[in-house]
């Protein structure tokens, strides 16, 4: 029996059946976590590309000193949109895409706790992003930077609709995000398969749980800050008005008390991916599982006590700066623990350098650099020379690309076979990795130097005599390489979708539950809800299966425990629903109305209520599968 026959026996549903069958209406009304995950993925990929082009334009402007390619207003709009889009409409939703697709499968559930709420979260994300980008044709792009410091963003210094688009789109997206936080928190707490105790959860799911908590606690203060900003701008309140006795620094506190946990919202899932990928490709369970889990919890916990490290130059005094500097340094410890445990996992393993593993190793290497530069500006006096310069720009791109993006690419290559039933090409994947890895370092490493040599961030130009020309030119060349590095990725996705090798249930011989179901999984995920009796349930006790696993795994490796082809008894699954969409549209209309028309707000409210009641009185599941 050949490998691929093996795979078919294991319920290989084929790309164009099952998960992907059905017309557009079936996607619009879907409440299936897998489909919603795919929608999240494709949408955020588009936003990633748009924001990437924006970053590319910024680099083009900075290619040489005193360049006149972009005028300063446009430059300021572009970096605001680049940052806002990357964080809220590319990074986070890309993470949520993986939460959606992977988490229920990893815990042995048939869907998330609230499938329709999940659909609503997606629509709010999509609509908030479209709303933000509707500022482009209206020539009213926000230009206050992604952290929108008051009072520059007040109606006095930023008249026009630009910052209103920023505030309103983030409020709308924030509602969907908090709903998602509730959903995944409840899902992971409540819908684990029998025997799936907390200390048996795969690391990715663990990080999803932690991130859900971070979302639930961090987004409300930001929401309040945005509401204050909206009221200051639209209704003449004085929350950030120094002349009225208020303190504009309050905005910075509200923003960063959210903004710093947000960094961990972006990075912990990537750590989760890597903590699943490294064991799978080292053929060895995660070293120090409980330590890795608790270091994740610790990072999240400490993450709420360090926000002032974004504000060391504000002048809050030596005590405040010393306390927050110290707390920030503490975070290096659990982060280091994770890195050491990953290396220890690989130690003594049989490491297979498939593309997911390359990106995982790339993360460990690159994130280390970002972490070390982080320690440099955790020291408040050193930070006085670094904050708001390209040194910081270098640092957070090492964290967010070298960490988040590499982690998510690793996850993409890892779970793509599960999602589509097809294998990606290893050759193209490796080309993608190496191009990305090199381009990323060429782009961002020189920024350490341009920052220390005196280049502030958010400057559309720099003087010729500063000695920054070479570093900037290298960064710009790297940025172009980065853009080209996406070509093998898209070729690969396109090729695999058209004619990729069938993947089988468990092409990597990986140990977690998602690899027991067919690829792509059936609508109901698990014909029989599995019972879990150990961590890494597919590995222990070892059953030597799979083909050629000592080298790179070939497609079609099999798992020892497979699901029956058909559920033995009827499975009740939630019905599709268009009410989340109706409600999302209503909330979009309200948001658009908030730009200046009470009538439109009321119309939106009416539609929202219609959606809410339609939702509440709709039976959530009818017949059997």
């Amino acid at each position: 029996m050949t490998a691929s026959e093996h795979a078919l026996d294991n319920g290989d549903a084929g790309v164009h059946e099952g998960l992907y069958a059905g017309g557009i209406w079936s996607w619009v009304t879907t409440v299936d976590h897998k489909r919603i995950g795919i929608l999240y993925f494709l949408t955020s990929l588009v936003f990633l590309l748009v924001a990437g082009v924006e970053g590319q334009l910024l680099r083009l402007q900075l290619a040489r000193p005193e360049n006149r390619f972009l005028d300063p207003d446009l430059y300021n709009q572009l970096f605001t949109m680049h940052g806002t889009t990357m964080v809220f409409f590319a990074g986070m939703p890309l993470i949520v895409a993986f939460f959606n697709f992977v988490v229920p499968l990893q815990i042995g559930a048939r869907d998330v706790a609230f499938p329709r709420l999940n659909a609503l979260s997606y629509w709010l994300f999509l609509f908030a992003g479209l709303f933000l980008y509707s500022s482009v044709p209206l020539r009213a792009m926000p230009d206050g930077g992604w952290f929108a410091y008051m009072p520059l963003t007040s109606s006095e210094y930023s008249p026009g609709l630009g910052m209103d688009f920023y505030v309103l789109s983030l409020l709308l997206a924030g509602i969907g995000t908090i709903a998602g936080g509730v959903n995944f928190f409840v899902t992971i707490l409540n819908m684990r398969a029998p025997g799936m105790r907390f200390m048996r959860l795969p690391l990715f799911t663990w990080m999803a749980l932690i991130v859900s908590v971070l979302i639930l606690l961090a987004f409300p203060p930001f929401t309040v800050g945005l509401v204050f900003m909206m009221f200051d701008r639209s209704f003449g309140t004085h929350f950030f008005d120094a002349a009225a006795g208020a303190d504009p620094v309050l905005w910075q506190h509200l923003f960063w008390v959210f903004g710093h946990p947000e960094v961990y919202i972006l990075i912990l899932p990537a750590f989760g991916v890597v903590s699943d990928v490294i064991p799978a490709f080292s053929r060895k369970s995660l070293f120090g599982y409980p330590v890795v889990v608790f270091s994740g919890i610790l990072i999240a916990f400490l993450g709420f006590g360090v926000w002032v490290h974004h504000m060391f130059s504000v002048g809050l005094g030596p005590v405040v700066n010393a306390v927050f500097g110290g707390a920030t340094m503490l975070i290096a410890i659990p982060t280091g623990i994770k890195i050491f445990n990953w290396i220890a996992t690989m130690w003594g393993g049989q490491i297979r350098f498939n593309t997911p593993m390359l990106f995982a190793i790339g993360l460990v290497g690159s994130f280390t650099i970002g972490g070390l530069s982080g320690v440099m500006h955790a020291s408040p006096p050193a930070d006085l020379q670094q904050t708001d310069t390209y040194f910081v720009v270098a640092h957070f791109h090492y964290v967010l690309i070298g960490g988040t993006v590499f982690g998510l690419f690793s996850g993409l290559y890892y779970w793509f076979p599960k999602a589509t039933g097809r294998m990606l090409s290893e050759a193209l994947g490796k080309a993608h990795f190496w191009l990305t890895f090199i381009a990323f370092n060429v782009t961002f490493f020189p920024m350490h130097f341009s920052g220390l040599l005196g280049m502030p961030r958010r400057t559309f130009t720099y003087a010729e005599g500063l000695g920054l020309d070479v570093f900037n030119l290298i960064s710009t060349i790297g940025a172009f390489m980065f853009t080209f590095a996406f070509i093998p990725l898209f070729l690969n996705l396109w090729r695999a979708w058209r004619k990729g090798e069938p993947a089988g249930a468990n092409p990597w011989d990986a140990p977690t539950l998602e690899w027991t179901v067919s690829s792509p999984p059936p609508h109901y995920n698990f014909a029989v809800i599995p019972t879990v009796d150990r961590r890494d349930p597919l590995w222990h006790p070892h059953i030597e299966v799979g083909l050629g696993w000592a080298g790179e795994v070939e497609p079609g490796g099999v798992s020892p425990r497979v699901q029956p082809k058909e559920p033995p008894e009827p499975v009740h699954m939630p019905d599709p629903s268009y009410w989340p969409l109706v409600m999302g549209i209503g909330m979009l209309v309200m948001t658009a109305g908030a730009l200046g028309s009470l009538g439109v707000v009321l119309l939106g409210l009416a539609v929202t209520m219609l959606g809410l009641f339609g939702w509440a009185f709709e039976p959530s599941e009818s017949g059997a599968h």
Partner: protein
Amino acid sequence: MGAVVLQGCNGEYPQSALHPSSDFATRLDDLFTQIVWWAAGVFVIVEGALIYTIIRFRARPGAPRPKEVHGHIAMEIGWTLAPALILVAIAIPTIQTIFIVDRPTTDEDALVIEAIGRQWWWEFRYPELGIVTANEAHVPVGRTVDLRLRSADVLHSFWVPRLGGKRDLVPGHENQLWFKPDSVGVFWGQCAEYCGTAHALMGTRVIVDEPADFDAWVALNQGSAVALTDPQSRAGRGVFMANACVSCHAVRGSAAVGQFGPDLTHFGGRLTLGAGILENTRENVIRWLDSTQHIKPGSLMPDVELSDEQLEQLAAYLLALR
């Protein structure tokens, strides 16, 4: 002359945090250097371990399945403690430095200068000396400078890297920053907190003089505008007074008392123009007056409609204000 001063004494990197020229900047640089060495050590260890591991334990055909090792308490403790100790080693000098640089200066002989950030230029006031100037601050070498930082509009951040770290200018707050320059020269700086359209063009210079030169500068700048000698500059004064210039700019000793723009009483003695973005030459002054919005988009100074002759006269007048 301008070109020589602008570039001559600053070497290749006039705005570099790595070339300190004051006690403040030196402290920060020393601390940073220490951290860099620790970081370099950690970098080598981690990346070395990573690369060694992935090479040594790469999959080999026919090798048996790896032995499971679920963890190791002593190792976990080890790699928790080792970074913790390094962090303590970094934290101690950090905290010592914080309690020096984040506190007001105790030097009673310090020269107090008020720096007021405005979109997009700097106003410098010397309250003890009665001097008001813009974008360029003269200070004597070897004497502590006690900067009082205020903002007239949005957030700004004062940053002259060779003299020290940055500190924000926050509406409703007065922040302090002090440094004692240890060498003579022209030190470049610019606003480091995003403040709107022309944020990138909000430069400044701190000119560290020998004490005698500083005293001469003070004597000159305490006075009103100098008397004009040539007809060209007198004609330029006529242009200045007859146009919108006076509604924003002040020239002490004249009818111009505007407050929104930089004080121009001793404009001719400055090295730069437009908040540190152009050398202060006749050609540049004319260009600036002729196309402010092109040179510094967003500048609150509108383009002024003047004939070529008027521009020549006005430039002559401004440069005569030494």
